[in-house]
């Protein structure tokens, strides 16, 4: 291998380090207007009137929209939302009106002059109370606040619990987590004279936005082109169609000029989707010899006021629940609910961090109760290569044993501190996640074209999207390897739009390296064959360089264009109604070992050291894989230790970076990454997806280390000093 496995610097890193990358906030089109959305300050209420007459008097205003100016058709996963709300508001931040003006100050002033009358209704914020009889119903046509129920079962759960030597149970509470991507949310819309819309949009799903936005605007998807600027972080936040995308498009059409709609940071915190608040009630049973027997989960997930991907997080939970460990019996129920709060969406890990906090805590509790080493207990019940699980998951490459053993070898019990108020402990937790795509849509495919020009340079045009993880670089390395040319001779066409790029379902589910990588590899292989065919036809020697062969082929009549396209869709299926099936062509395994120090007087727990071992199949670029692992570990550390949306009467109280603290450079522990390369048979050069898995096990590993240090079992994130201190006090 010449290119695969190399620590190639990211192809876009130099531009980003030079300040040359263009994000949505950097786009400026001639005549472009700036837009502002007027949002509800009432969490639940009936809209009596929205009067925009005074707003028109502000100089510079070019368009104002309210609900009566736009298509009335509801859209979204549960068909429960519109771009602007006309009859009811269901959360603080609901879109009431929107203004486009020549400058942002005018747009803001116009919004302030719009007179809104809302008759307040009783609201419900709590995810348990929202299902109680008599709770205010958000969407009356739906009958109740229950969005959907997900069920799963295998084995005889009741019998397994009855014969168990040890059963542990607990309730685990997880907060809403903000994506807090540093690049603000926004979109720029422009219409051409033929009535075609171009939307510059940092979305993760350009082709699905093409479909969904066309539906929301009541236009043909053929008249819509999505162009992605550089994306300033996403982590799942840009995985759906959101009202602001439709609003920007509608304002631009009304004004007859390009419109840019950018969120302020507090707008981002208050209104953009979050990881759902979740409550997991779990019981796990084991035999005296440490054989896992059964688990039983009952879960509540918040959707907020409108349904987006939050309601589907149980699908990933189920995948773990039915597949992870050799567990002969399992029963699962998850209900998703509407509340008068911020809508919830996809966030890296997608339900798995929530579920595995509970599962991996109880694995630790059982190991302790049965006097087994936590890693030996996991090894005893670990999945193995080439097995089919009761859920129908087909395990192929499986480095579970290797990641557990790597952590066991590297995580050493620290010496006890001299200070009596400081306690040190160690803890581990493991993860199972999709690593070969995830068939949650009917397609899990991606297309790619590889062309080679007369200068020997290859261009890759691929449907996949980069959100910072290094998609372009990985694709260039795969193409270079297959073509037998240096990475420096490969370009990946970035910021290409949906008119040019081949289909891709989007960047999610840790799928891009695996799915897009396979598509690029297939296309490159075919392009290479075309070059070799030309070499033979032209009778050029085997050592004639690629550029010479291609030039000779392109410079003759009846020559052939050196360009090949391929489509890859993995050999998987959607789950059936009982949530059985094999959604991914490969699964990834990981284990985190953590050392913490707890101050038992203040409750402050500090993570000192992390060993993060992951089965990555094969690292196409070890430096970028390490970056995914380190980034995931630190994001998961924030979720476990201090990130939380504090809600009061439906309003987030801490919607600034000062109060909603994401990890800073001084919060970062010593992180040692271990890459286990199992060489997946289906992955491109053996690679598996690794984007999400690293955020999952860090939280329960920290909780288990706190238990080891203090004897106190934390079952709520974030594990703030106050919460730890209260548990310590209660345990005395």
């Amino acid at each position, binding site marked *: 291998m010449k290119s695969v496995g190399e620590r190639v610097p990211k192809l876009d890193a130099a531009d980003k380090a030079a300040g040359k990358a263009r994000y949505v906030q950097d786009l400026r089109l001639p005549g472009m207007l700036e837009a502002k959305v007027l949002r509800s300050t009432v969490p639940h209420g009936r809209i009596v009137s929205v009067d925009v007459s005074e707003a028109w008097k502000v100089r510079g205003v070019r368009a104002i929209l309210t609900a009566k100016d736009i298509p009335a058709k509801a859209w979204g996963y549960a068909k429960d939302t519109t771009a602007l709300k006309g009859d009811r508001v269901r959360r603080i931040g609901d879109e009431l009106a929107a203004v486009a003006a020549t400058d942002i100050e005018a747009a803001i002033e116009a919004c302030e002059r719009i007179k809104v009358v809302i008759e307040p209704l009783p609201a419900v914020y709590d995810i348990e109370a929202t299902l109680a009889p008599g709770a205010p119903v958000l969407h009356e046509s739906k009958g109740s606040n229950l969005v959907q129920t997900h069920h799963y079962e295998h084995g005889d759960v009741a019998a397994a619990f009855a014969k168990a030597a040890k059963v542990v149970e607990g309730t685990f509470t997880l907060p809403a987590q903000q994506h807090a991507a540093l690049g*603000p949310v926004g979109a720029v819309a422009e219409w051409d004279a033929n009535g075609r819309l171009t939307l510059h949009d940092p979305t993760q799903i350009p082709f699905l936005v093409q479909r969904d936005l066309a539906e929301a605007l009541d236009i043909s998807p053929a008249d819509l082109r999505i162009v992605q600027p550089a994306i300033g972080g996403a982590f799942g936040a840009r995985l759906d169609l959101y009202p602001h995308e439709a609003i920007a498009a509608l304002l631009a059409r009304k004004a007859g000029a390009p419109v840019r709609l950018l969120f302020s940071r507090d707008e981002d915190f208050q209104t953009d989707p979050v990881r759902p608040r979740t409550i997991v009630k779990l019981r796990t049973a084991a035999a005296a010899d440490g054989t896992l027997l059964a688990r039983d989960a009952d879960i509540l997930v918040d959707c907020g006021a409108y349904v987006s991907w939050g309601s589907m997080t149980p699908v990933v939970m189920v995948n773990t629940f039915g597949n992870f460990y050799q567990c002969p019996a399992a029963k699962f129920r998850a209900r998703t609910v509407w509340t008068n709060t911020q809508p919830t969406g996809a966030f890296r890990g997608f339900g798995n961090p929530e579920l595995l906090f509970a599962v991996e805590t109880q694995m630790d509790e059982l190991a302790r109760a049965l006097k087994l080493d936590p890693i030996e207990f996991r090894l005893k019940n670990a999945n193995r290569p080439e097995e089919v699980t009761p859920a129908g998951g087909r395990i192929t490459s499986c480095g579970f044993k290797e990641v557990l053993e790597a952590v066991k070898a590297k995580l050493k019990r620290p010496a006890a501190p001299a200070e009596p108020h400081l306690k040190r402990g160690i803890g581990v937790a493991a993860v199972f996640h999709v690593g070969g795509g995830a068939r949650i849509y009917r397609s899990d495919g991606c297309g790619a074209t590889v062309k080679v020009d007369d200068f020997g340079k290859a261009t890759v045009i691929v449907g996949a999207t980069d959100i910072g993880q290094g998609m372009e670089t990985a694709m260039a390395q795969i193409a270079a390897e297959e073509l037998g040319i240096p990475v420096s001779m490969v370009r990946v066409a970035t910021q290409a739009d949906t008119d040019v790029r081949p289909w891709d379902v989007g960047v999610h589910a840790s799928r891009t390296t695996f799915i897009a990588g396979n598509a690029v590899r297939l296309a490159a292989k075919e392009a290479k064959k075309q070059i070799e065919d030309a070499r033979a036809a032209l009778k050029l020697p085997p050592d004639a360089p690629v550029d010479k062969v291609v030039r000779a082929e392109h410079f003759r009549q009846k020559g052939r264009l050196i360009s090949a396209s391929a489509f890859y869709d993995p050999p998987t299926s959607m789950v059936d109604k009982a949530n059985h099936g094999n959604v991914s062509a490969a699964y990834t395994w990981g284990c985190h070992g953590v050392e913490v120090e707890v101050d038992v007087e203040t409750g402050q727990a500090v993570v000192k050291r992390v060993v993060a071992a992951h089965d990555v199949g094969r690292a196409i670029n070890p430096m970028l894989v390490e*970056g995914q692992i380190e980034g995931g570990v*630190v994001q998961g550390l924030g979720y476990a230790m201090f990130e939380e949306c504090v809600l009061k009467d439906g309003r987030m109280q801490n919607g600034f970076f*000062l109060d909603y603290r994401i*990890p800073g450079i001084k919060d970062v522990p010593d*992180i040692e990454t271990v890459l286990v390369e199992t060489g997946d048979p289906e992955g491109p050069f053996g690679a598996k997806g690794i984007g999400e898995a690293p955020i999952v096990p860090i939280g329960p590993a920290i909780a288990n280390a706190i238990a080891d240090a203090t004897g106190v079992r934390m079952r709520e994130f974030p594990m703030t000093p106050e919460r730890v201190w209260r548990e310590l006090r209660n345990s005395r």
Partner: protein
Amino acid sequence: MKINLTVNGHAVALDVAPHRTLGDVLRNDLGLTGVREGCSTGDCGACTVLFNGTPIVSCLMLIPDAEGASVVTIEGLTKDGRPDPMQAAFVEKGAVQCGFCIPGMILASKAEDVPEGNLCRCTGYKKIQEAIREERRRTRPQA
């Protein structure tokens, strides 16, 4: 009001409203969009510039306070098309993911060993720490 300052080594004369911030003027009047606007409340550090050699968040400085100052933005670090050693170290060490925070992070790292005022949501900071150590090793070799 009329403001004179030096930006990336060039004298600049401006006539701008006094309530505007330095970051806004750099981005929107001078086209220096490498000055990223991440929060506008001084908390994220994405808009960091060097102000008379000291890193500051340009979203919190009103433009009258920049009178006579020398300001360096990320665009000013690249000389004759060649990256500054800190830019090069960030690229080589894999410290860039989405890249939004990176211009501010690089400018802060020129002056601080631990840029604790600059937030990054992607990298987990470890490769940023490695890049800073690498730049120090190259530019300040021990005697």
